[in-house]
């Protein structure tokens, strides 16, 4: 084809322009605000209609699976935090459960309830972020602000329990890092009241809103059969009317002991996905309340009597070797920053010291604890599940979050595979946007809830 001059291009004249319309190629991302930073859609457009979309990922690939192979089992916990940065607790627990399956150990009853409580709080955070961000991308900035405000209340709860907001590292193979803090139930009730208020405000703002519905109803739809063929799970599948929820169909932890409903959609379009997520938040909060009510073990955290010393002072004494009498000292420990109370540890973790990391106070405060700690983290030591393989699936906020762990009998995992819940919907994204308008890419991509850390690993 002969070269066109700039003038011909500008005026749409010259060879190649006279024979009907020409398709236009548009790169969205990988640094486009609506692409959440790290994904690229190479779209072929005919006018404003998407003819073909090619989705490119991998911009955030950090070799999660390779990194897991180089350290002991417990060292992978901080890596799993970074998989889904809005609901890292679920990733922590799912990985730990896969290793527990490999070890054939059962966590304590109280720990199961704690995992349910913290997972469901995370799920609400995740849905709040997803719905808020996609509403903002459609211009409803108020919704985003309200929902992030609600998420803040929940992140304060997470911070209370784990000591961190995002990189929580709270799960442990065989248990959790710490017990729930004093008065946690009261704080949860307060936070949930705020969240419920926000949810009802958001319903008023956008659920019947003309602009919002025009952009969501009938957009980006996938049928139930297609969703299954594409391996899609979670809210996207349920929006298409398939009642697949691992918490219901293959219950784990304490999910068979709490009552909840599985919200379903009908059309599998963006609007149904939004409604399913909104309803799921309500159900999650319901589950947390029941779990807190039924949690075995009586009061949360024991009331120690006697002298109290701050945790940091206790740890400093231990580090300086001033350990005389330290273990006899009754203390009230902050459960979130350093470790957990000695009495609580017995309750939360499994008794097997060859599996569970000791709390930091014990590691710093006694030679037995120090040795116990070292024996679990030193190169060549650590837990050694028998050779074999195990797959554990948990219901992540986006769908089935699976960990496939292969052990060769040594102290480090031979292979860790994470089945990311948001990969299948992103793979099916071209199917959802082809034939739609270019503006429909934005709400559809938002409804997929792509999480870069998990997608690229």
């Amino acid at each position, binding site marked *: 084809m002969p070269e066109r001059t700039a003038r011909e291009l500008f005026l749409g004249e010259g060879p190649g322009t006279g024979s009907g319309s020409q398709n236009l190629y548009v790169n969205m991302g990988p640094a486009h605000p609506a692409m959440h930073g790290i994904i690229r859609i190479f779209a072929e457009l005919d006018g404003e209609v998407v003819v073909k979309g090619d989705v490119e*990922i*991998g911009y955030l*690939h950090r*070799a999660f*699976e*390779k*990194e897991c192979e*180089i350290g002991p089992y417990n060292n992978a916990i901080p890596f799993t935090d970074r998989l889904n940065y809005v609901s890292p607790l679920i990733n922590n627990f799912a990985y730990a459960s896969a290793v527990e*399956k*490999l070890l*054939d150990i059962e966590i304590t009853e109280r720990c199961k309830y704690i995992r349910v409580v913290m997972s469901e709080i995370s799920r609400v955070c995740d849905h709040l972020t997803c719905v808020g961000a996609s509403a903002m991308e459609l211009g409803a900035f108020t919704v985003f602000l309200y929902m992030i405000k609600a998420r803040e209340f929940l992140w304060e709860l997470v911070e209370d329990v784990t000591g961190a907001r995002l990189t929580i590292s709270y799960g442990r193979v065989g248990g959790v890092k710490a017990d729930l803090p004093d008065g946690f139930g009261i704080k949860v009730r307060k936070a949930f009241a705020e969240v419920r208020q926000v949810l009802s405000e958001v319903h008023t703002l956008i659920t019947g809103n003309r602009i919002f519905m025009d952009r969501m109803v009938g957009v980006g739809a996938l049928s139930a059969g297609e969703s*299954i*063929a*594409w*391996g899609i*799970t979670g809210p996207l599948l349920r929006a298409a009317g*398939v009642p*697949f929820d691992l918490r219901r*169909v*293959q219950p784990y932890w304490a999910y068979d002991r709490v009552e909840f409903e599985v919200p379903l959609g009908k059309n599998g379009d963006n609007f149904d996905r939004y409604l399913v997520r909104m309803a799921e938040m309500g159900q999650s909060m319901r589950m947390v309340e029941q779990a807190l009510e039924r949690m075995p073990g009586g009061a949360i955290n024991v009331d120690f009597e006697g002298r109290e010393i701050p945790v940091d002072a206790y740890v400093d004494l231990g580090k300086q070797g001033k350990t005389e009498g330290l273990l006899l000292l009754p203390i009230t420990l902050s459960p979130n920053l350093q470790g957990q109370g000695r009495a609580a540890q017995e309750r939360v973790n499994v008794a097997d010291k060859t599996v569970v990391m000791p709390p930091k106070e014990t590691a710093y405060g006694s030679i037995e604890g120090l040795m116990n700690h070292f024996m679990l983290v030193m190169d060549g030591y650590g837990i050694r599940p028998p*050779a*074999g*393989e*195990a*797959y554990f*699936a948990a219901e992540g906020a986006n769908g*089935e979050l*699976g960990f*496939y762990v*292969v052990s*060769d*009998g040594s102290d480090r995992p*031979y*292979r860790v*595979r994470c*089945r990311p819940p948001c*990969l*299948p919907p992103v*793979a*099916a994204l071209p*199917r959802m946007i082809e034939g739609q308008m270019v503006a429909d890419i934005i709400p559809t991509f938002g409804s997929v809830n792509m999480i870069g850390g998990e997608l*690229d*690993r």
Partner: protein
Amino acid sequence: MDGSTILARLRARLGARVLETHEHHGDHTAVVAREGIVDALSYCRDNAELRFDMLMDLTAVDYLKFPGREDGPRFDVVYHLYSVAHNHRVRLKVQVEQDAASVPTATGLWPIANWFEREVWDMFGIRFEGHPDLRRLLMYEEFVGHPLRKDYPIERRQPLIGPNV
């Protein structure tokens, strides 16, 4: 249907092409010969009582340094199947040698196999015969080697790409 019945069905259908079956920690696995895998997968998907309608996961394991398997087939390609209709699971595996590291594609059965297989190709260098578009998924095209292979050192640095680097 429980796992052992599923495995018995597979053995009855595929005969000697099922090389081995086992149960670890409640997960049921069948190791299928390379030439029987598409047959096994489509049987799993289409049989009314099995109805494994979802390819939940597809990945691979490099057994190069696995104790006791140094001389055996190097790679396992692992399929995790789930049935939404019947709520049961099974794991299928294919063992492949390094020299002939290729498996027939499953893209004809499930569209999601497309991306999963691209990822396995990218990370392990296992080819999928008949795949419509076998490109790297996570790494860039100029990347040399396959990072999840056991003989790919974790410290290896590759040169930056781009003009005039």
